[in-house]
């Protein structure tokens, strides 16, 4: 009965793919939804590639998954991948459906699957990865993900025992996951700018898990990302199997060492989180059997997708669009820290309100007080515009962060924000938008460019 139901589900899903193409509708996981609706254990029956690499974690999984797919393509390996779809069970099903024909015959030899960490319990009972990359675990949506320990428990309860783990030694929240599984660790040795005390509001690894003494850090980058040790017992961060060292963001190079092998790599992006993403992919490729030298060659031909980062030059000014995942304090802090690190005078438009929440209820704003708005105090930031449904909450948060009231402007409607810009000479304008306000942010950007144009004609 199960197999018959599966066959019907697969046929229906394949028909839905055709229907979507005919109607030119972009339903990213619709075929998977159809399949699982008809056959709830669809993932149990669908054939899959011989080798599966799963990528999960709170941050960076899309970037790592896409980059790994692209680097493998340079190595001549076309893999099944859900980069254009979703990462929950129905998205994984949709991806696997695209990898088989109507008779459930698999077309690919390998898959790189981005997996939503909370969906692990619906996916891993059936789809058992050979390797699983956990990029990191951090605070995310309070409503959905609660706290990182909760997500770690879900992963631990569902990671198959035979899966080899590729883990970030600099993130103790994920490094200790599923301790019985075979594993390798990657990390980045001490970098310029590292501290010994975290300055961030979020730091979920403050005490030793064994004796509860306050941990010390040989170096820490943000939150609890770094190399920790307990001053009271022998607990410490794992040693690196793959170590990045001599990381230099000015010359944009780093070295990677594993065993007796080492290689010089160009950095694909200067952001620390993207250096971690690159090191993650290098580790995964080496685990797949490629030498560091080969990986360097493949990597030189690909780029990190820049959809989340987009700069437009307008005369003496720049307009930068930055995705700042809504209701995600950790991601917001990284974006604020990045803006603070950039040179020049700046204006910032904050419009990361969750628009979906406005329709259904009201956004839970707890994340504002986990997020380091303090990075927006000073650092050349001369004017901040808060806009959208939660403008008053943003304003209060900025005041709490020490931002002077006279450099904060507010408007309820996002498209009014460009009219409030002060447009300094050589101004750098940043528009921070959430995952469901991409189109609206585009309108605001157009308004900003128009305002700059009008100012230029005065």
């Amino acid at each position, binding site marked *: 009965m199960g197999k018959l139901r599966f066959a019907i589900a697969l046929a229906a899903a394949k028909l839905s793919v055709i229907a979507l193409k005919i109607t030119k509708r972009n339903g990213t996981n619709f075929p998977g939804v159809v399949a699982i609706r008809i056959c709830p254990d669809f993932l149990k029956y669908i054939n899959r590639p011989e080798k599966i690499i799963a990528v999960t974690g709170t941050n960076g999984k899309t970037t790592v998954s896409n980059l790994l797919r692209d680097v493998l393509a340079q190595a001549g390996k076309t893999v099944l991948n859900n980069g254009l779809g979703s990462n929950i069970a129905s998205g994984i099903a949709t991806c696997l459906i695209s990898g088989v024909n109507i008779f459930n015959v698999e077309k690919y030899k390998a898959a790189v699957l981005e997996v939503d960490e909370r969906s692990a319990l619906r996916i891993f009972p059936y789809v058992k990865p050979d390797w699983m990359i956990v990029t990191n675990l951090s605070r995310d949506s309070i409503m959905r993900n609660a706290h990182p320990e909760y997500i770690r428990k879900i992963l631990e309860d569902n990671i198959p025992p035979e899966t080899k783990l590729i883990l970030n030694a600099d993130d103790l929240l994920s490094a200790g996951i599923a301790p019985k599984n075979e594993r390798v660790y990657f990390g980045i040795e001490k970098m310029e700018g590292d501290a010994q005390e975290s300055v961030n509001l979020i730091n979920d690894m403050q005490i030793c898990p064994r004796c509860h003494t306050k941990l010390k850090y040989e170096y820490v980058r943000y939150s609890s990302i770094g190399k920790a040790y307990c001053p009271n017992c022998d607990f410490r961060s794992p040693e690196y199997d793959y170590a990045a060292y001599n990381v230099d963001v000015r010359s944009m190079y780093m070295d990677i060492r594993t065993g007796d092998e080492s290689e010089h790599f160009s950095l694909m992006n200067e952001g620390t989180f993207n250096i971690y993403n690159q090191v993650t992919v290098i580790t995964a490729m080496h685990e797949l059997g490629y030498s560091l030298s080969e990986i360097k060659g493949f990597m030189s031909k690909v780029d990190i997708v820049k959809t989340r980062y987009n700069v437009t030059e307008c005369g003496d000014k720049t307009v930068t669009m930055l995705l700042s995942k809504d209701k995600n304090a950790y991601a917001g802090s990284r974006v604020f820290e990045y803006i603070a690190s950039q040179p020049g005078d700046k204006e910032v438009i904050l419009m990361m309100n969750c628009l979906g929440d406005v329709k*259904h209820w009201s956004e*839970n704003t707890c994340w*504002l007080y986990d997020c380091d708005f303090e990075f927006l105090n000073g650092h050349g930031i001369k004017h901040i515009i808060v806009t959208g449904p939660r403008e008053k909450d943003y304003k209060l948060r900025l005041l709490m962060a020490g931002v002077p009231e006279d450099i904060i402007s507010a408007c309820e409607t996002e498209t009014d924000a460009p009219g409030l810009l002060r447009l300094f000479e050589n101004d750098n304008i940043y528009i921070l938008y959430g995952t469901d306000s991409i189109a609206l942010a585009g309108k605001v950007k157009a308004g900003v460019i128009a305002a700059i144009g009008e100012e230029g004609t005065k």
Partner: protein
Amino acid sequence: MRVEVLFPEIANLYGELGNIRYLEKSVPDICVKETSVNEKPAFLDSDEESFDLVYLGTMSESSQLLVMEKLAPYREEIISSIENGQRILVTGNALEIFGKSISDDTGEKQQCLGIFDFHTERKMMNRFNSLYLGKYGDIDVAGYKSQFTHSFYDDSSLKPLFMTERGPGFNPEVKEEGIRYKNFMATYVIGPLFIINPPLMTAILKEAGVEAEPAFKDSAMDAYRSRIAEYSNPKTGFYY
């Protein structure tokens, strides 16, 4: 004003330490002592100067176990301190530590400090998310709930901290929310409770004998009034 924050290295979820930062900005000459989980709470130390407020915030489930283990030896001292009028505010799942037990849907049952006569039921695969609108006396209180648990009063004489106008109470079946016993205050309303409710903070400070204006009063009250109006609007959904 002297404030003790218990175990901020683990009891710090959902921006709740923002409440302490807001107190620091609102109350002149405030002194905040942070007590780590390996230390005895200072408010139980007879050699310490007294504290006007002791605060314990939301934490992970494993941290709950650790805190219970660390506080268990001081159970009688905590009871005595509460009876003597120590002002304590606990938020989110921190309140469950002071009840009788936490039962999981797996059948496991964790004994708690048993200071107050209520019990907690937990469903780790069910996250209960809602907005909250209630009253602290005559004061409107708005906030958020996001939890795996509900608690149930086993002693009908237990008094709530808030009376619910919209959203769930201590559990979805009751209007009473939290616990108020003498100066012990507990609520499932999480996050920046004081920041989004300046009148509540002012009232609690006043009860503690501290006269203070909320920091950034105009902006804070503007945001507060907007939120109360939004949450009072029947068109605003309350459940995620």
